[in-house]
Every structure is written in structure tokens, then in C-alpha cells.
């Protein structure tokens, strides 16, 4: 093994900044509130700092890699490449904000030790997924994510929570099993294959076309469960019974993102865009993504439960990433990659706000939103910005995504994609704008459900409010500064040039 320096240690340290807090928090008695808070925050801040170090290092051309032989012929590999760095940055920043939010959200005595223990474990798995240098390492953390998230989904222990948890577990374990078969088949066929090493598979393209196609279907099918691709999405709306911080984790930071990220890795870094195109798999991917985008939006339209509406919105929005993967042009790849970030910050904002509304005003349905804008202006402003981003109105982050995807579709000769994007934007507007309009333009209902809180001082708890403000603002900043260096958009553009090739 190479000498122990920062180049090997950094990927491991990125994991340890949440793994160690997880272990310590599990052992911590329930009532040690302060200590737990300190450990949580220290871990989250340390991870963001380390991410900064990684960005600086990668820009300076340093290659970070940690490697250990698991069993003969199979290595565990953690590497910081450009695409992983994109995902790590998203997760570590949103982990920080979500930790703050969760500390504000959970009541005393709500089994916080267990919650934050699994919460940290969840993020550890996500970072592992991001940094995985081959499929086996990816699979390991992918399954760990399933296991670590389950206790969070069922956290409340109610009947609905348990049913949601069961759906989540059975869908995910099935997806994981399908993925395992794909990974094992690939291993049997081509031996150990690492990401960004295209030679082994390209060499098989002529002789094992069918096998490669079937393996691709298994891999994407397995990953499609977490990505909530229709018809594998059934668990996601059910899992929204989880507490709001968990929903943020599921919908933006970790779970669904891990699935979409996996598809990105399989297409760009395992098969390579050229091979997938050669196997004629891009168009099927586009079709599946388009169906999911439209179907998710249509279902979102008829949900009165706010979180459920947001859940179907996730089903739809997540497939923008898959759509980008299927568009073989510079702009298309750029659009898909940047949406990894854009969808994350937009959706996390929406869930923070939905959680805050439910907690402060008892509002959980769209039909209860009347006048909420006046009662909680800060929260609703953040919500509105994020929703406008989802619709794709300039200058939000979501607009930049749709712009690139549309251009990409035209450039790749798939003009119909623009139609899908327009239709989806109309639908997005149809399910977000009425909700926003209610909140700002209708009078508050005197008989509002929930606790009769005083009119002033509702938005005083900084732990609950600031995360949404920060991520909401970032939706605007990221959109306005899309052309600046290091913005998600220009970062994605740089990667896209590598992916598409000369």
C-alpha cells in the first residue's frame, strides 16, 4: 500500500467525519443534548472543510485515491474524481444544513440518539457511494444506505410510518438484489472493472453485445428503484410519512440522488457514453425518463397533501438527471449533471419549508395554505423561490438546467425532448403556482388547523428557519452566477467535455 499521506487519507477522512459521529452518538445517552449537538455540528462542518480541501486539491491536479483489497481480485476503492466531487459537495453542504434543521425540528425525547446515529450513518453511506471507484464499492455503500435509512423512515413508529418503511425496504432490497446480479455478471464477464477505465467493456462490445445490454438493464433497473423511475417509484410517496429532515435526506441529499448518481456513473464512467450509444440504449433511457417526468407531474397535480405533492414532484424532477444522461450532446450532459445539484438545493428547500409549516402552523395540506405567506413570510419566500426553480423560471437554478437540457436535445437530434420539457414546465407550474398563490394572496383562515401560535415570533427559531433561507438563496445565487467559475453549471460543463469527448 502506498505511503500514508493526504492523497490516500482524504477520501477516508471524508467518510470518517460522519462515521465517527454516528458511532459516538449511538453510545450517547438520550439526555446528552449538548454533546450530541456539538458532535453533529463538528462532523458536518469538518466534512464541508474537507470538501473544500478536496476541491482545491483536484483543481491543482492532485489525485486522491484510497484502495484496499477486500477479497482476492476485488478492491475497495475510494477516488475523488470530478463527478464524485460534484456529489460530495452537494451532500456535505446539504448535510450541514439538514443537521441544523433536524436539531431544530426534532422534539426532546424523540429518540434523538437513534435518529442522529442513523442520520450520520446515512450520510457516510452517501459519501461512500459518491467516492466509490468501482461497482463493488458502490454496491457496498448503496446497500448500507438502504439499511441506514430504514430506521429513519419508520422513526415515528406509527402504523403509516411502518407501512412506508416496509415499502421502502422491500423496494430497495429488491433493487439492490437486481443490482447485485448485474454487478456479479459484469464481474464474471469482464473481471474487476473500475470506473473511468473503459477498455475492458469496449473490448467486449462486439462479442458480448447481448450480455452487455442485459447487464445494463439490470444495473439501471436496480438503480432505478432508488431513482424512483416509473414504475419503480411506488415507495417514494409512501416514505414521505417520515419526519421532514428525513424527507430532505431521501429526496435531495442521499437516497434518490444515490440512484440517479449511480445511473450517471454507469453510463458515463463505466460503459462510457459512446458504448451506450453503440448498444442503442440511449433512446430507451430517454423514453423512460420522459414518461417518468410527465407521469410524476400528473400525479403531483392531484395531491392535496403537501409532502405527497412534493414527493411526486421528486419523481418527476429526478428524471431530468436521467434525461440528461440520455442526451448525447455537450449541453445535454451538462444539464443532467448540474441538475444533480440544482434538484438537491431546490427540493431540500421545499421540504424544509413544508416541515416548518407543519411544525409551526400544523399546515400539511395544500388546501390549508391560505394566507400562510403573511404568517410566515421568510419561510414562504424560500418556498416560492424553490418552487419557481422547479418550474424553471429565470433566473433560478432550475431554469439553467432546463435551458441546457433543451439545447442539448436539439443538438443531439432529439427535438421532442423540448416538448417534454415544456409540457413538464406547464405541469410544474400547474401544481406549484396555485399553492403559492393561496399562500400569498388569500386571507389567512381563522380556523387554521394546528396550534394557535401567537402571530409574532413564529419564525424565531434559527435552527428551523436558517437552513431554508440558505438553500433558498442558493437557488437564486446558483442561477444568477451560472457562468461563474466553480458554479455547478460551469463545473458540469467542464465534466461534460470529458464525457462527450472530442
Amino acid at each position, binding site marked *: 500500500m502506498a505511503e500514508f499521506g493526504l492523497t490516500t487519507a482524504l477520501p477516508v477522512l471524508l467518510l470518517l467525519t460522519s462515521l465517527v459521529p454516528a458511532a459516538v452518538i449511538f453510545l450517547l445517552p438520550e439526555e446528552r443534548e449538548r454533546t450530541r449537538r456539538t458532535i453533529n455540528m463538528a462532523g458536518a462542518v469538518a466534512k464541508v472543510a474537507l470538501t473544500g480541501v478536496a476541491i482545491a486539491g483536484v483543481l491543482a491536479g492532485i489525485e486522491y485515491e484510497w484502495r484496499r*483489497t*477486500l*477479497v*482476492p*481480485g476485488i478492491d475497495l476503492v475510494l477516488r475523488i474524481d470530478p463527478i464524485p466531487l460534484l456529489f460530495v459537495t452537494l451532500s456535505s453542504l446539504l448535510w450541514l444544513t439538514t443537521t441544523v434543521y433536524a436539531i431544530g425540528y426534532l422534539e426532546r425525547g424523540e*429518540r434523538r440518539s*437513534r435518529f442522529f446515529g442513523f442520520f450520520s450513518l446515512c450520510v457516510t453511506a452517501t459519501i461512500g457511494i459518491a467516492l466509490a471507484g468501482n461497482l463493488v464499492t458502490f*454496491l*457496498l455503500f448503496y*446497500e*448500507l444506505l*438502504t*439499511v441506514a435509512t*430504514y*430506521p429513519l423512515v*419508520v422513526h*415515528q*413508529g*406509527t402504523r403509516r410510518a*411502518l407501512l412506508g*418503511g*416496509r415499502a421502502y*425496504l*422491500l423496494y430497495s*432490497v*429488491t433493487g*439492490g*438484489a*437486481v443490482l*447485485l*446480479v448485474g454487478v*456479479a*455478471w459484469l*464481474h*464474471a*464477464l469482464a473481471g474487476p472493472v473500475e470506473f473511468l477505465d473503459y477498455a475492458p467493456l469496449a473490448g467486449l462490445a462486439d462479442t458480448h453485445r447481448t450480455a452487455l445490454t442485459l447487464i445494463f438493464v439490470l444495473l439501471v433497473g436496480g438503480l432505478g428503484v432508488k431513482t424512483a423511475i416509473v414504475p419503480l417509484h411506488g415507495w417514494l410517496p409512501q416514505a414521505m410519512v417520515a419526519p421532514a429532515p428525513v424527507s430532505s435526506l431521501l429526496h435531495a441529499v442521499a437516497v434518490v440522488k444515490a440512484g440517479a448518481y449511480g445511473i450517471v456513473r454507469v453510463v458515463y464512467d463505466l460503459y462510457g457514453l459512446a458504448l451506450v450509444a453503440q448498444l442503442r440504449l440511449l433512446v430507451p433511457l430517454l423514453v423512460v425518463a420522459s414518461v417518468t417526468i410527465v407521469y410524476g407531474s400528473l400525479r403531483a397535480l392531484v395531491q392535496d397533501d403537501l409532502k405527497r405533492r412534493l414527493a411526486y414532484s421528486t419523481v418527476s424532477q429526478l428524471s431530468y438527471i436521467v434525461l440528461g444522461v440520455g442526451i448525447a450532446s455537450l449541453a445535454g450532459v451538462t444539464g443532467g449533471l448540474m441538475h444533480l445539484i440544482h434538484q438537491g438545493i431546490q427540493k431540500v428547500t421545499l421540504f424544509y419549508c413544508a416541515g416548518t409549516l407543519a411544525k409551526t402552523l400544523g399546515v400539511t395540506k395544500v388546501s390549508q395554505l391560505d394566507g400562510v405567506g403573511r404568517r410566515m413570510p421568510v419561510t414562504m419566500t424560500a418556498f416560492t423561490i424553490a418552487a419557481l426553480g422547479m418550474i424553471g423560471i429565470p433566473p433560478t437554478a432550475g431554469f439553467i438546467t432546463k435551458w441546457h437540457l433543451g439545447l442539448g436535445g436539439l443538438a443531439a437530434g432529439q427535438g421532442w425532448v423540448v416538448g417534454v420539457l415544456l409540457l413538464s414546465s406547464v405541469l410544474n407550474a400547474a401544481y406549484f403556482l396555485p399553492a403559492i398563490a393561496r399562500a400569498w394572496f388569500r386571507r389567512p383562515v381563522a380556523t387554521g388547523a394546528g396550534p394557535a401560535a401567537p402571530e409574532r415570533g413564529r419564525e424565531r427559531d434559527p435552527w428551523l428557519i436558517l437552513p431554508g433561507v440558505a438553500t433558498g438563496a442558493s437557488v437564486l445565487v446558483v442561477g444568477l452566477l451560472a457562468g461563474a467559475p466553480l458554479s455547478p453549471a460551469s463545473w458540469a460543463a467542464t465534466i461534460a467535455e470529458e464525457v462527450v469527448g472530442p
Partner: protein
Amino acid sequence: MGLTLSLLALPALGAIATALATRRRPALAMVVTTATLVAGLVHARAILTDGAVTVVVGTDRLAAVLAADGLAIGLVVLSSAVLLAATGFATAQRATMGPPLASFWPLSLVLLTGLHGLFLAGDLFTAYLMLEVVAVAGAVLVAFGGGHARLVAGTRYFYAELVASVTFLVGTALVWSVAGTVVIAELPGQLTGSTTGRVALALLTVGLLLKVPVVPLHFWLPAAHTLAPSAVSPLLSALVVKSAFVVLLRLWITGAPELTATAVAPLVGALGAVAILWGGVSALRATPVKVVVAYSTVAQLGLLLLAVPMVVDGSAEAWVGGVVHAIAHALPKAALLMAVAVLAHQLGGDSVDHLAGAATRRPIAAFPIGIAAVSLIGLPPTGGFVAKWYLVVASISTGQWWWAATIVVGSLLTAAYLARLLQRSFAAVPSDAASPRPRGRAPDVIALTLASAGLLLGLYPNGLLRLLEVGAPLGGVAHG
């Protein structure tokens, strides 16, 4: 030679000592088991550097042959470790669950002697003797808790074992008449040529399948494993069921490697597949937690048999997958049985519903259930995953993809029936729940340790794989 024999002598002497001792039996049993464990580890080190050893005790054609290869020593270390945990568990529980009968200590050491003998057995006659030792000790351990139901279960268990033993003995005698030897390593090519030889092979196989047990010969298992005292069930489910499988593996792979071309191996695999599905579905439907776990054992044993047709096909991956599973399954299964025993006692009942809120009320006892579930489903990073990985890869590379499909369905069934336990554990604490009975933490910690060991096996499987490679019939996966 002395080292190999000590693996039998230490527990045998320990059994006598604990039987004769009038006090401090638990401490004595712990010391003996620890010493056996250390001897096993030293032996493992020795064969890792010097290769497998064959020890011949006695002279002439009646000599007993002990084959100390990686598989045998791996299982020896495993069984000493699990017995150590079970002994600790039995000792720690005395405060809350009443003292186990004094005969637990000597009997469990007799059982350990028999298990070690079976794992090491290089000839069929030694194997027969050790099968008897295990059967007698096992049946008495099931029944000794007292009560009519246990007596019935223990007796049925003993009868099943007896039929199996007799079948095995007749097979052994026939082998002797055909080949003039019962040393397994000298058998290749001698059995499949004649009708008598083939009948002998069939009898030996049926006897062993009954002992494993394999569906449809599993009828005695659920009652025996469920009613056995809580320190005994882990020994039965984690260890005893593996012993007959090892003999089967040796008989087929070492003794009759020419079986490749026959249809018998796929038949054994098919029995395994049926066991996986039948056991899984039965576990889904069972109400008492221990019955769920017992059917889980039936299903997991099917996974072992599933490896046989691929091993016979010459797949080193399948061999590794099978034997890693034999070892990896033991740790979470023992942990699971201990954890559910503790919870059943503390929460006042043994049905799945009694687990309601266990994760909140007794987190340290409930945690092993979670870790064990991850292992048994075969999710990474656990020993169960390593086994499943090799079996799936073997199935694909030998072109026998239907085994991979069965394994996947089996994992999903496992997830489904273990999810029932997890679902209840994570449920809100029932309002009418009585406060849990007081108890020490030691049993929880022992279960947690075993479950964690299963996890570590998945993170650091290399040592185990290297050990299993020593004297392996098909070579290891490293150079395969």
C-alpha cells in the same frame, strides 16, 4: 499431530471435568472452551504457514484419519467461539432466567468434541462415531430443559438422528466391502463403478441429508430448535446443522469427484432451492419468533446445498461461497437467537407481536437483530454478502443462472420475514406495555458481539478466505 488431537482432547477432558466438578462449573467450562479456541487459532496459524495436515491415529486399516485442512480448522475455531459465547450467555442469564441444569456444561462440551471430530473426520467410520456423539449430546440438550413438549421434540430429534445414523452406518459398511477402505481421500474412482458402490453413496447421502436436514426431511428441526433452551438453540442452529454438510461436501468432492457427469448433483441443488423457498415461506407465516428463526435456518441450509452442483462442476467460487456461508451464517444466527431469547423474556412473550417497540425499550438487545438481519439477507458489508457474492458469480460463470435467480428470491424472502421482526421492533411502544423485567447487560452484549463479528467478517474476509484455501479441493479463488 498433538495440536490436532488437542482439539478433541481438550473439550472431551473438559466435559469429564465439568461433570465431576461440584462447583464452579461455568468458570471451568469457560476456561476449557477458551483453551480450545486458542488451540484452534494456533492450529490455523500453523496450517497457514505449513499447509494442511493429515493425522492418522492407530495403525492398519482401522486407523482413524483426521484431515486438518482450512475448512476443518475454520469450522473448529468457529464452533469454539460460538460455544464460548453460548457458555457466557448461559452463565449471564442465570440471574434472570433461572439456572440451567448442571448438565449443560458437560453436555455442551461433549457436543463440541463431536463437532470438532466431524469437521476433522477424514474417514467415514470416524465420521459415523462423531455423528453419534453429536446426535446424543444434541438430543439431550434439547430435552433437558424439562417438560413434555421438550421431551417429545428431543425424542423426535433423536429418532431422526438414529435413522440417519443407521443409514449412514450401512452405507459405510458397503463402502468398506467395495473399496476395502473408509478413508475418504482413498475413495475416488472406487464407488461409482459398481452398483453396491452407488448404493453405498446413495445411503450415505440420504443419511447426511436427513441430518443436515434438507427439505423434505426437515420435519424435526423447527420443534427441536425452538423448544431447546435459549443457550442451546444457537449451538444447534449455528453449528450442528453445518456438521453433516461438511461430511457431505467431503464425501462428494473428495471421495467421488467423478460424479461430475451425473444428474445427482443438480438434484441436490434442487433440494436446496426447495428448502430456500419452503423455509422462507414458512418463516413468513410463523408467529413465534423462534419458529421464524428456525425456518430461516431451514432456508439458509438450502443455500449450502445450492452450492453443490456448481462445486461438482469445478467452480472454485461456488466452493468458497458455500463454505464461507457455512461459517458466516453461524454468527448472525447465534446472535439472533440469543437476542430474541432475551427480548422474549424481558418483553413477556415469544410472538412477533411481543417485539413491539423493542428498539425503543431495549435498544441494545434489539440492535443485534438488525445487524444479524443485514448479514442473513446477505447485504454488504457482512460475511453473508461475501458468500452470496461468490455463489452468484459462480452461478453466472458456470452458466447455471437459475441458482442465481433462486439466491435472489431467497434473499428477498429473508428480507421479508426478517422485516417482520424489524417492523415490530421499530413500532411505537404500546401504551399497555409492562415495563421490561430487570436484567443484566451481559447477554445483550454477547449477542451484539457475535452479530458484529459477522459484520467484521464482511469487512475483513481475506484471512478467512486464505485459511479456507489451505487444502481446498478446487484451489482458492485468488488463483482461480
